[in-house]
């Protein structure tokens, strides 16, 4: 009796595991096919442009909000801390690390995963359940080339300037908070940053752009394509996509930093 119960339990766990492995395999092929269709960008340049507007231009406000809040928060908190040690002149340096390398990109990644990822997931999921993706295939158009590749390419292109904007706005806000809250001369703030800025700071920051672009676009699109079971199914698959891509953004954020800092220290 107990043995069969345990047997059933193990069996159901094995089944779940098998499913997970199968899904990961499917995702891997999906990702490969998305990259393989990049040469068709010329044919679908209009879709690339549309997506670039959506993920680039329309994401500017949310990127500004997240980078400004990180810049302000770090400058304020770290300033208070440094003041205790009489090291307030190091504020710029301390803030810039967090803004450029870690929290700035991370929060931007999470925000874009919520914004661009959810949009992709919901849009493609709705297309899946209304059979528009089947219709593309039925009439001879590769849905990955038409729908996923433009989103991927647009994100790869646009996330770079978004990171630059996020870096700039975050530091600028940090400087303003230093000036008006900590009464620190902006010259001192910036001077503690510039001479110590190293190439690796920028490599970390800008390498995160394509990594996040790939994670967010492919995971959300894959989940959209996998939507089943009506409108509720679109909701479920969109949530799955956001949870998965946010989690992966968190993990990737850590590993990109670690990798680059290990190599370039």
């Amino acid at each position: 009796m107990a043995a069969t119960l345990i047997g059933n339990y193990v069996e159901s766990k094995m089944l779940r595991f098998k499913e997970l492995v199968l899904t990961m395999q499917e995702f891997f092929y999906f990702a490969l096919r998305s990259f393989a269709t990049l040469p068709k960008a010329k044919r679908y340049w209009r879709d690339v442009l549309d997506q670039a507007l959506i993920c680039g231009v329309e994401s500017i406000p949310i990127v500004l909000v997240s980078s400004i809040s990180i810049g302000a928060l770090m400058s304020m908190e770290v300033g208070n801390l440094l003041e205790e040690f009489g090291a307030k002149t190091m504020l710029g340096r301390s803030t810039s690390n967090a803004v450029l390398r870690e929290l700035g990109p991370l929060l931007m990644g999470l925000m874009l995963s919520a914004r661009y990822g959810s949009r992709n997931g919901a849009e493609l999921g709705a297309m899946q359940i209304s059979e528009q993706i089947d219709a593309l295939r039925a009439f001879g158009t590769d849905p990955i080339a038409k729908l996923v590749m433009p989103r991927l390419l647009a994100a790869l292109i646009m996330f770079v300037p978004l990171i630059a904007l996020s870096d700039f706005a975050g530091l600028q806000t940090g400087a303003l908070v230093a000036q008006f809250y900590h009464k620190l001369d902006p010259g001192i703030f910036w001077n503690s940053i510039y001479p110590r800025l190293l190439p690796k700071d920028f490599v970390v920051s800008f390498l995160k752009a394509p990594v996040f672009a790939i994670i967010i676009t492919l995971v959300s699109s894959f989940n959209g394509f996998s939507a089943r079971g009506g409108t509720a199914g679109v909701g479920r698959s969109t949530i799955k996509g956001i949870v998965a891509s946010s989690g992966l953004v968190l993990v990737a954020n850590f590993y990109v930093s670690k990798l680059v800092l290990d190599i370039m220290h």
Partner: protein
Amino acid sequence: MIELRNVTLRYGEKVILDKISLTVQDNTIKAILGPSGVGKSTIIKLMLGLIKPNSGQVFVDGVDITPLKEADLYPIRRKMGIVFQGNALFDSMTISQNMSFFLRENLRLPDEEINRRVVEQIRFAGLEGYEDQLPESLSGGMKKRVAIGRALIFNPKMILFDEPTAGLDPVSSRKILNLIASLKKSNDLGAVFVTHIIDDVFAIADEVAVLYQSKIIFDGPTAQLHDSQHPFIKSILSDKILEL
């Protein structure tokens, strides 16, 4: 001609189609009748190679399409038009863009030729004046006609309809059925239509196959359906209702 030979299809552990065989001749209207969830849409997708059977073969004009790769399936699919149950029109495109999209995608035609064909399909669908509207602003019957126009754009020999009258009012249903029948007469077009409405079958189908519990329980000329002794068929003939 489309033929399913000993086709089995499972989703997970669930057997949807169990070794079914089915033939659709050219220039014939064949109905596939069955209750909801029995696997009718699945059969249509198998015919187009959109999904692959677990075992068995699908032949289109004598070619076994089951081992074919996606890219090799494209020219074969072009022999068949498809009208999806919910039409599957692209909701971000206008009516004429919906009609022209696949022409532009697949054939290197000059713009005038594409426009000519689109105008022709718009006129055929009786949608003059709606060219620049989005699908959402059209009635159910009109959307269905756009979908039929789109399905005809490559001049196929056969057109597949997934529940063409589901969700339409009786007058629009009637019009769509007449349209399917007239396409056969005027364009020599064969049709497969799946439905759960038995009146549609008697209205236009030359032949009918009945799908029930993963099996084909009847396959033959529509008129012979009355001779079937199968209890399920007898019950649907007396009730005319397939909701179980």
